[in-house]
């Protein structure tokens, strides 16, 4: 079932809270759950836009930044 974080009234709250408990170790109340889903959506969409803007992001190593800093500092 698709869950719309903007329209939580019809969402299966019990199952979402169970999911949250599996993820975080506690069951958040409804306010926190709604806020949390909005935050996850916002974060993912920010990164989705970045992935679209930089299609070669997957080719970059997570250590590349540290390597660049060292090389630039030595230049």
């Amino acid at each position: 079932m698709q869950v719309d974080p903007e329209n939580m009234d019809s969402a299966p709250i019990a199952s979402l809270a169970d999911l949250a408990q599996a993820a975080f170790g506690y069951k958040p109340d409804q306010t926190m759950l709604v806020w949390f889903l909005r935050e996850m959506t916002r974060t993912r969409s920010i990164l989705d836009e970045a992935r679209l803007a930089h299609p070669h992001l997957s080719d970059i190593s997570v250590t590349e930044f540290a390597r660049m800093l060292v090389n630039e500092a030595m230049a």
Partner: protein
Amino acid sequence: MNALDMTMCEAVDAINAGRISSTELVQESLSAIARLDPNLNAVISVHEQHAMAEAARLDALPSDRRGRLHGVPLAHKDMFDRIGFVSTFGAKPIHHRTATTTAELLRRLEADGAIGVANLNMAEFAMGPTGHNDNFGRCMNPYGPDRISGGSSSGSGAAVAARLVFGALGSDTGGSIRLPAAACGVAGLKPTQGALDMSGVMPLSHSLDCPGPLARTSRDLARMMDVLSNDDYENDIATSIRGLIIGIPDNYYLDDLDPDVAAAYDVAVQTFRSLRCQIKTVAVPSQDMLPHYADVLWKSEAAAFHRPRLTPGARQLGEQVRSRLTQGLAASAVDYIDALKLRAVALEQMISGPFRQCDIMLVPAMPCVVPTAADASGNSGEQMRLILEAVSRFTRPFSFLGLPCLATPAGQDRNGMPIGIQLVGRPGAEALLLRVGHQFERTERHCLPAPPNSRAP
């Protein structure tokens, strides 16, 4: 001149020349703390016995065994461990701990003669750019107690500005050295990511944390950096900066500035012209998303560090802190990894873009004047986010980029509060930043009067 009005370097010279002893200087510092800190709340704990014992020991040392910071009283953000002493991290008592080791940076400072007289106030677990702290009380700005001191190294900025001590260590993850430096009218250096040792320092975000010094002048910062990094920054600090290219950004960093900040910035540009630097407008790649990418990193890392404390009802964290940390649970591992990779993309764009055209970038420290504590105090998550975004708008991108930044005073606003600028360099450009800061500070128009709440008459 009052002893505490000297710069750090002047104080070392005075001790070595026999004009004052370390014991006398430490007594002055302790006296100033006792007299002034009730109106500042910059200090969490005072180490009087330790400091006086150290001062006596140092006063007995022959001159050929004296270090570069011989006898000067310093104090540090309460997250740098000192063996046998309690670190509070600005947090609730349940988190206070007696350190079993001494932070390497603290060890280096004191091996070179500095004396730690106090632990300084900070935002709870270093999370907060305003100086608010529900556990120890708000740190007040020496230039205006109703204004924020900036944070999270709030006590470091305030204690140095108020002439309680000659310098302090702080830490910067999104602006936490630069903002208190700017708000309190002192100099603060966020070094290149990874430049200084983090051992014995409480982490907020391993990817973004930068420990660094605050002091009243760039020369003092250089002296501290010499000791902290075992390098040589002070020797060349008076070298001319004639011909240096100062980059003025063409977007983001000059957008929506308060008129007083804009005016101070223009005066700073003219100062660099008068120092025979070249001024060049440089195209800056879009910076808008960098703070959001940085949020994914630091909130995830901070949430992981504080994981056991995040359960509701645990009551181990202030509500604002818990709210921000919980946001860290909202990022997936994939998003976190891509945010790490985006650092390389963003840094490449800066190096191949503006830093191919200029030696140093000049930007304001904040787009706004120093806000009142009342305006900056927001208890709701959304209100807090808006305040944080405004105050730290110009510092967070450079944290994400890992670049070295020097904040230094550039005048005062209509309320008499300091206005700060940032000098930003390529990775490893600390020496150049300190030279530029030194030359800038020597021009009279940027000298601030001592704050009303300070040791100075």
